[in-house]
């Protein structure tokens, strides 16, 4: 049996010499390449990041636009920078889902037993996720422009808002990575994280202005990081001064990464 199916000759099993271990950068890039391949082979992965944003933008614009701002077009000017924030924050959960399924399938065991820079698999996965966030963001902005969104600050403002949202998404992805390492199944990553994300994104000024809320709620919403982010996104796109909100988001992102990245990396190195 071995003769017909398993070409013998130990030469094939031998590699001339052990190469020098991959550099940190090359390991991260290789793992980012893997993330791209996964998107290529399982394009369904992009379904959530394309269909959901389109659905949300259309639904909220046309359902609430008339009631909240007089017309869908007027509401869109307010909503679009915010819906961008909400959509991207929602899809950050997939980072945790991906980490969890890599662990369940034993793939992280393989990575961890290789002599490479240990954070590479996590950073490589994040690089792939940033690509997905970008796809979703570009779609929303393009759809917005088609529907009549006119950002006063022009392309530069939109680009800055997009980058700021990416920074924040990168930061909270680390939290989902911790989740992904902690819980047993990808499904529980989804359910647990949405318990946080629903209040976090809806109890913000993404959909309605702060002034319309009862005062007790206003107090909560004002301190929601998502409120700062959607303020910043709105301001950058429409050219109003939101320096304070931008700084707030940058500092919050730095704090989240500074706390959760080391925890995530320690959990990654340790046992499960």
């Amino acid at each position, binding site marked *: 049996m071995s003769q017909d199916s398993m070409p013998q000759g130990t030469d094939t099993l031998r590699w001339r010499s052990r190469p020098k271990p991959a550099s940190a950068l090359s*390991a991260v890039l290789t793992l980012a390449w893997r993330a791209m391949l996964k998107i290529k082979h399982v394009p369904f992965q992009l379904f959530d990041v394309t269909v959901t944003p389109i659905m949300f933008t259309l639904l909220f614009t046309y359902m609430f636009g008339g009631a909240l701002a007089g017309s869908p077009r007027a509401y869109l000017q307010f909503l679009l920078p915010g819906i961008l924030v909400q959509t991207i924050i929602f899809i950050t959960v997939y980072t945790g889902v991906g980490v969890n399924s890599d662990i369940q399938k034993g793939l992280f065991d*393989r990575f*961890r037993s290789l002599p490479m820079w240990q954070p590479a698999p996590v950073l490589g996965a994040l690089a792939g996720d940033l690509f997905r966030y970008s796809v979703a963001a570009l779609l929303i902005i393009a759809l917005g422009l088609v529907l009549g969104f006119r950002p006063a600050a022009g392309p530069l403002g939109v680009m800055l808002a997009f980058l700021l949202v990416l920074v924040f998404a990168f930061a909270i992805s680390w939290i989902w990575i911790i989740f992904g390492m902690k819980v047993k199944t990808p499904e529980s990553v989804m359910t647990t994280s949405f318990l946080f994300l629903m209040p976090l994104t809806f109890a913000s000024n993404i959909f309605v202005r702060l002034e319309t809320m009862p005062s007790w709620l206003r107090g909560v919403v004002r301190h929601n990081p998502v409120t700062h982010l959607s303020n910043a996104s709105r301001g950058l796109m429409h050219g109003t001064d939101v320096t304070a909100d931008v700084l707030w988001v940058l500092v919050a992102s730095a704090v989240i990464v500074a706390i959760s990245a080391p925890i995530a990396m320690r959990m990654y190195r340790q*046992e499960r």
Partner: protein
Amino acid sequence: MAIAIETRDLRKTFGSARALDGMNLVVQTGSVYGLLGPNGAGKTTAIRVLATLLEPSGGQASVLGLDVVRDADRVRQKVSLTGQYASVDEDLTGQENLVLVSRLLGMSWSDARRRATDLLAAFALTEAADRQVRNFSGGMRRRIDIAASLVTRPELLFLDEPTTGLDPRSRNQVWDLVRQIAADGTTVLLTTQYLEEADRLAERMAVIDHGRVIAEGTSHELKSSIGGNALRFQLASAAQRADALAIVTGLLADGSVLPNTDPTSISVKVADASVAAGVLSALSRANIALADFSLGTPSLDDVFFAVTGRPVDTEAAAAAEVAS
């Protein structure tokens, strides 16, 4: 000969469960060594500690002279691990998986592609090169997984239950591969719960139970440690067991009956194989029908039974694993 693996009083606890409870193990380089034991005995934990995936809770472990905790990075440069589940990316193709590992080990893109193509050929996977691993059969998955462990030839290869769940043909292929890898100079440590597998592949083996080594040696040594030949009768009917037992013990004053849970079988240890014929004709005269009869050295089942006092009880072991 150099020492590939040495553990001293190795311990690993998960909460209150003691997965490794003072394991002492010495494995020489250049051999296939088997860790044998039921589910939950601690085999996988032992391999994960040795491959630097788990930190031990106590005791020491060194691999190729390097401490698995202090020199974890250098250990990883010399060993490869093939886990119990195919640790390759199911979404990627066979070729892409091997390129991925080759790149992560530091090869250039062109070297990585060449290496992947060579390995696919060596593992009879060329036709599946561009298929996603999720569409591979169990045997193909196991082969791509082992191939991923051989991208650069490791000095020591860990194989965790390499043939669990495989059909006999795929199992034979994996066995051939293991022999080939060992012939090529790589030390192989494999875990198995199949006694036959350890018997076929491993020159030496350790029987593991409750996180400890309870017996160690070559297959032959383990078998002769319980002494003599085993004479085994499979009765046609359990009702005749008492009668048969009386005849057997009457004839074989020097033989000891080996413990046995099967109500239709009797195993007796005998010093001299020549008594078998006499026992057979006595049983036949007493009209005791036999379904099967064998004479041979004790199996590893007998060894496990002799050292633990219980058969390889997969149900109890599985329950213990769930508990841990």
